């Protein structure tokens, strides 16, 4: 890592250059509509069909028609052009973003920038994935490490978690608290894939190994499904059907220096840089009621909490013990839909949608009482955090 970039991991909260300044876009852009499909195995449709369904739900939610959309960001569908053609949208701003889940937050930031600069007024962001029915494999194929059998995002996280346990004394049982809390939330969410299928920490411990030290219940759930968000200026959103949810702050720091190998620092420096999200949003940690954490694998939840300073590096296991992340039990209800582990792996798109729903009191049995602000965290080589809040 170039020395002039690297914040020391010994200095919690150190901010990356350029992230301390006031954020010009604070509270200027809002979610005006949200749409999600069912998640499951739907071979009768495809990512386009699911994307159209989610966008129609979001348009209905916002009280808009396709002709009101002048910006379009498409993700996981093969072609933005074909999708726009299907929906009859001819925008003035359009792009297809990269497939990895880190691009949910990136897409959101791009849309906010486009709205803030006037490149578009009302942007639909549509994620559609049919990974389950086409039996998408997250692993295999030719790569730098395939001669040694190293492949799959799960193995990268397993490698990091093994090291974390060695370095800090965490245990696989610590992850059981994460899996159990998110499954509890799925059981409160009638739309969750794992609704009605509770698990215990004992089930988590005894699940079959996939890539040791990780086991089945440390992995996210691959499904077919789609999520759509409609973003516009806060001002315009106030005249629409639903109460706006504001994008108060966003922070991001990338790190691509790991030599194509699993990161050796649990993303602590770059997640640490993202602590600037609080200053950017003008909202302190204590003013946040719940979290959405990108949980492709259970260890990333601990990496996220450590990196954003909820606890010290290495103390994530202690932090989540006794149900800290569980609604009704702990201070930090996290992934109240069930998250990637127990609702569905919608690559961050669904988790952000859930944060919006919490801030509109749309969550029924899984509603966080008096939710005023929610924070999203994504621990990847593009580390990100964002804070959403209710319109005052």
């Amino acid at each position, binding site marked *: 890592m170039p020395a002039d970039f690297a914040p020391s991991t010994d200095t919690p909260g150190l901010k990356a250059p350029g992230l301390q300044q006031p954020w010009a876009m604070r509270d200027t852009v809002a979610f005006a509509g949200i749409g999600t499909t069912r998640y499951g195995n739907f071979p009768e449709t495809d990512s386009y069909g699911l994307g159209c369904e989610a966008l129609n739900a979001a348009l209905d939610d916002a009280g808009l028609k396709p002709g009101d959309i002048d910006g379009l960001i498409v993700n996981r569908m093969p072609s933005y052009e074909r999708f726009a053609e299907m929906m009859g949208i001819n925008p003035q701003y359009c792009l297809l973003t990269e497939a990895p889940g880190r691009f949910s937050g990136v897409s959101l930031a791009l849309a906010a920038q486009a709205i803030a600069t006037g490149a578009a007024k009302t942007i639909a962001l549509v994620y559609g994935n049919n990974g389950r029915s086409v039996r998408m494999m997250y692993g295999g194929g030719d790569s730098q490490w395939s001669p*040694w*059998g190293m492949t799959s995002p799960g193995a990268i996280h397993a*490698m990091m978690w093994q*090291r974390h346990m*060695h370095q800090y004394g965490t245990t696989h049982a610590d992850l059981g608290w994460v899996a159990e809390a998110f499954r509890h939330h799925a059981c409160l969410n009638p739309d969750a894939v794992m609704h009605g299928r509770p698990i215990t920490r004992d089930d988590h411990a005894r699940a079959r190994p996939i890539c040791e030290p990780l086991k089945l219940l440390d992995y996210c759930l691959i499904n077919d499904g789609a999520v759509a968000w409609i973003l516009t200026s806060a001002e315009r959103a106030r005249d629409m059907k639903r109460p706006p949810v504001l994008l108060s702050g966003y922070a991001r720091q990338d790190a691509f220096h790991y*030599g194509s190998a*699993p990161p050796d620092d649990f993303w602590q420096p770059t997640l640490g840089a993202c602590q600037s999200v609080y200053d950017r949003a003008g909202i302190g940690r204590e003013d946040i009621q719940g979290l959405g954490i990108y949980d492709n694998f259970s260890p990333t939840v601990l990496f996220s909490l450590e990196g954003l300073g909820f606890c010290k590096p290495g103390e994530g296991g202690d932090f989540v013990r006794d149900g800290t992340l569980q609604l009704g039990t702990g201070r930090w209800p996290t992934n109240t839909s069930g998250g990637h582990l127990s609702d569905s792996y919608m690559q961050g798109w669904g988790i952000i949608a859930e944060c919006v729903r919490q801030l509109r009191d749309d969550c029924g049995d899984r509603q966080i009482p008096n939710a005023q602000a929610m924070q999203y965290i994504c621990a990847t080589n593009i580390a990100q955090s964002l804070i959403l809040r209710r319109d005052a």
Partner: protein
Amino acid sequence: MSLATRPAPVVDNWNRPFWQACGERRLILQRCTATGRCFFPPAPVSPFTGRPEWEWTEASGQGELWSFVVFHQNYFAGMKDEMPYPVVMVKLDEGPFLLTNLDGMTAADARIGMRLEVRFPGGPEGFLLPQFGPVEAPPMEASVEAPVGAAA
């Protein structure tokens, strides 16, 4: 062992010398001539300066077991017979990490921090794959100068 049926390396203009050296049972790395630091995977420029200022250097072939996993799910037809198989992350004494496998020991004997050294027991046709195993008993003077962290 079924190293012969492993996926073949993807050879490009930058890693070709690395694989040729492996074929001669030698581990080589690119070293940035401006900073003296080594890097991997092979690349057209040094990541420390962004400039094409580097040279190939003979690596010690030794490093520390940094972390490891055991695959129970198979993604490669040619590795079916090896299931479940370990992948280890080795921090070479020169700095870069390699993802590799164990030779002459099993995952049950793997301890993070232990010293490992390279060997070349086989590979798919036309290649020898670097694998890592316990360090052979070193000569007296070498053990005195063992790198910091060797006992970790």
